């Protein structure tokens, strides 16, 4: 992207004492060291850091629960956990991972940090609302996790009625209240991003010059704003039925439990796209940078994002084919679910097209991104199995479904989150990390993931149901493979925690643009100052200016190594 921002000053690491002579503003990290300056900050970059800390804690809480679940499933008998403890653990895993890690992961950390930077703004449109959203997320998270750990909930993350309202004797009400609170944090974030993208783009930053990551955040925000209130209502109804005895869904009094599922999945299906659209945004940035090529079919990538965001709202019924829903409605939902595969396929095609004849480099963020494309494709294709009614009836509530959505939500979204974290880590912290370790972790994560979840496709197709702590011995081989993979995956997830922490303390200073990437966020210092830019950014061209306009890509030449020492 050709911009004039920061080209005059071109500063490097900020804590270098010589630089103080240039009278550059201090970085956002150095702009106040008190606890108060963090907890009451309205700086989008600091709020991103706050979010990053909380979701990391939640990620490891949810991960610990998954570890226990996988440990129990290593043998067909119940030897580690009792049935009700097992139920509480998979509920804890689901609730924490979905609402307190995955949903806020990319939007609230990378999105918060990058959206204003990428569009050349000083901050988000409503900075105080941004801070409030973090407190809502934290408050809801603490409430839900306290309930899930102290008393436990055995309904699964879906809180299906009438089990959750009439039968379950666990701490459903408090957990539901926690998730309800967190919903408002999502809405606040959505309002903020939409307002920011509409109103605070730098001069020259037209809609079709926005980086795809910003488009992804924008479309995700649409879903935040339009889907989350329905979840709020659904959980409110469960809360009211449990706590005040107001029967809305109670079949004994003429209520309709399937209605609950409609409302729940009206949110929770788009929620899958809330998790995966930001990942698509991240991966689009990574692949174009590490192939040194302009994104193939930029406008189609944009339209595909918008199409996924809109069509994603029409497909929720495919979660309910075996619920007793009308078969006519099931047909409609099945058809609509196939349609949403089209824009997803366009995106995979265009990522591949971007790689074609590019000067592909295999730095750690790119390894995560390539892992994403493979895992997303597999997860997406198995989604088509589940969208067709006959196959779905066969594999509904088996490990096939578990494997499918983990491919999308963990294989795709978490890979992209780690990829983005590594890519923008030098920008966020001003430090470099040990690249060899990072590549090793990325490769380990890919293999660990496949070892964990691919056997679940097979076990599920053979008929192993979800949510049981014991199972027939014939499924043991697949479960042992899966549990072994989970151990590898756990190691792969712990490694970044180690070397990224190390890099915070001992990492080398990062340059302003260590990847030689385009984009406004690389046109300011690492880490950026409180006001993001030194001058006022002006945009004169489209994104991803990796080779000159109208010139064919250069072939058969050694690829330029990334600038800066990332080894």
């Amino acid at each position, binding site marked *: 992207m050709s911009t004039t921002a920061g080209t005059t000053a071109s500063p490097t690491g900020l804590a270098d004492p010589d630089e103080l002579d240039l009278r550059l503003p201090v970085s956002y990290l150095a702009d106040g060291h008190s606890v108060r300056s963090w907890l009451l900050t309205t700086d989008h970059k600091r709020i991103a850091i706050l979010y990053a800390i909380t979701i990391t804690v939640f990620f490891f809480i949810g991960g610990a629960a998954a570890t226990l679940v996988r440990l129990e499933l290593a043998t067909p008998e119940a030897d580690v956990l009792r049935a009700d403890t097992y139920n509480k653990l998979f509920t804890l895993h689901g609730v924490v991972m979905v609402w307190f890690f995955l949903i806020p992961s990319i939007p609230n950390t990378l999105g918060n940090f990058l959206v204003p930077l990428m569009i050349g703004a000083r901050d988000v449109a409503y900075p105080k609302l941004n801070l409030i959203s973090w407190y809502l997320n934290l408050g809801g998270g603490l409430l839900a996790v306290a309930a899930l750990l102290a008393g436990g909930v055995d309904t699964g993350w879906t809180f299906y009625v009438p089990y959750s309202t009439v039968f379950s004797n666990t701490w459903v009400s408090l957990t539901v209240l926690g998730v309800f609170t967190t919903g408002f944090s999502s809405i606040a974030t959505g309002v903020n991003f939409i307002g920011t993208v509409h109103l605070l783009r730098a001069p020259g930053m037209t809609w079709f010059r926005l980086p795809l990551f910003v488009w992804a955040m924008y479309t995700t925000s649409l879903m935040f704003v*339009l889907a989350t209130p329905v979840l709020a209502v659904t959980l409110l109804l469960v809360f009211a039925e449990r706590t005040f005895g107001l029967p809305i869904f109670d079949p004994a009094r003429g209520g309709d439990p399937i209605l609950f599922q*409609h*409302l729940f999945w*009206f949110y929770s299906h788009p929620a899958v796209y809330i998790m995966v659209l930001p990942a698509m945004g991240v991966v689009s940035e990574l692949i174009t940078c590490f192939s040194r090529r302009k994104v193939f079919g930029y406008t189609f990538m944009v339209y595909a994002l918008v199409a996924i965001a809109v069509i994603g*709202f*029409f497909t929720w*019924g495919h979660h309910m084919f075996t619920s007793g829903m*009308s078969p006519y409605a099931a047909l409609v*939902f099945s058809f609509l679910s196939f349609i949403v595969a089209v824009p997803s396929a366009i995106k995979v095609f265009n990522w591949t097209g971007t790689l074609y004849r590019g000067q592909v480099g295999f730095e750690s963020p790119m390894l995560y991104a390539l892992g994403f494309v493979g895992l997303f494709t597999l997860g997406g294709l198995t989604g088509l199995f589940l969208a067709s009614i006959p196959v779905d009836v066969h594999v509904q509530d088996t490990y096939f479904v578990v494997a499918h959505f983990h491919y999308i939500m963990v294989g795709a979204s978490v890979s992209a989150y780690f990829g983005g974290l590594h890519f923008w880590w030098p920008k966020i912290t001003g430090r470099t990390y040990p690249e060899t370790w990072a590549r090793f972790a990325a490769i380990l994560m890919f293999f660990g993931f496949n070892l964990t979840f691919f056997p679940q496709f097979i076990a599920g197709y053979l008929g192993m149901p979800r949510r049981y702590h014991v199972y027939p011995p014939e499924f043991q081989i697949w479960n042992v493979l899966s549990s072994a993979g989970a151990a590898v995956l756990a190691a792969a997830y712990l490694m970044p925690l180690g070397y990224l922490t190390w890099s915070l303390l001992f990492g080398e200073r990062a340059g302003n643009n260590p990847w030689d990437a385009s984009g406004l966020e690389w046109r300011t210092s690492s880490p950026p100052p409180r006001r993001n830019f030194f001058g006022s950014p002006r945009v004169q061209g489209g994104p991803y200016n990796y080779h000159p306009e109208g010139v064919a890509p250069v072939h058969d030449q050694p690829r330029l190594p990334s600038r800066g020492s990332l080894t």
Partner: protein
Amino acid sequence: MSAKSPKSETPKSEPPKSETPDPEGPGIVWRRNLPVWVVLMALLALSTWAAYWPYGRIDTAIGFGIAGAKTALVALVFMQLKHASGLVRIVAACGLFWAAILFTLTLADVLSRMANR
């Protein structure tokens, strides 16, 4: 919102037509909104009365139709959607459109289950 800023200037830029410029000002605001309120009250009375007509389902339709009419009046005049920017109108329309998705697809299931019971 581009439409709004010139509109808010009109009372200022208007020449004082009458001898009493200050009371004339508030009159403009009242004249714009009071008729809407009168219509709203009439609609309320009508919907209350119509609920007692012995036509069954038509009464229900009238009740919700009137609620829709009231909504249109409040949104267009009181909420100034009539003078709002295109963006704000799109946002308002999006809320309604997505609510329509929720209603249509859910009721498609609920109604077809009822029809086949």
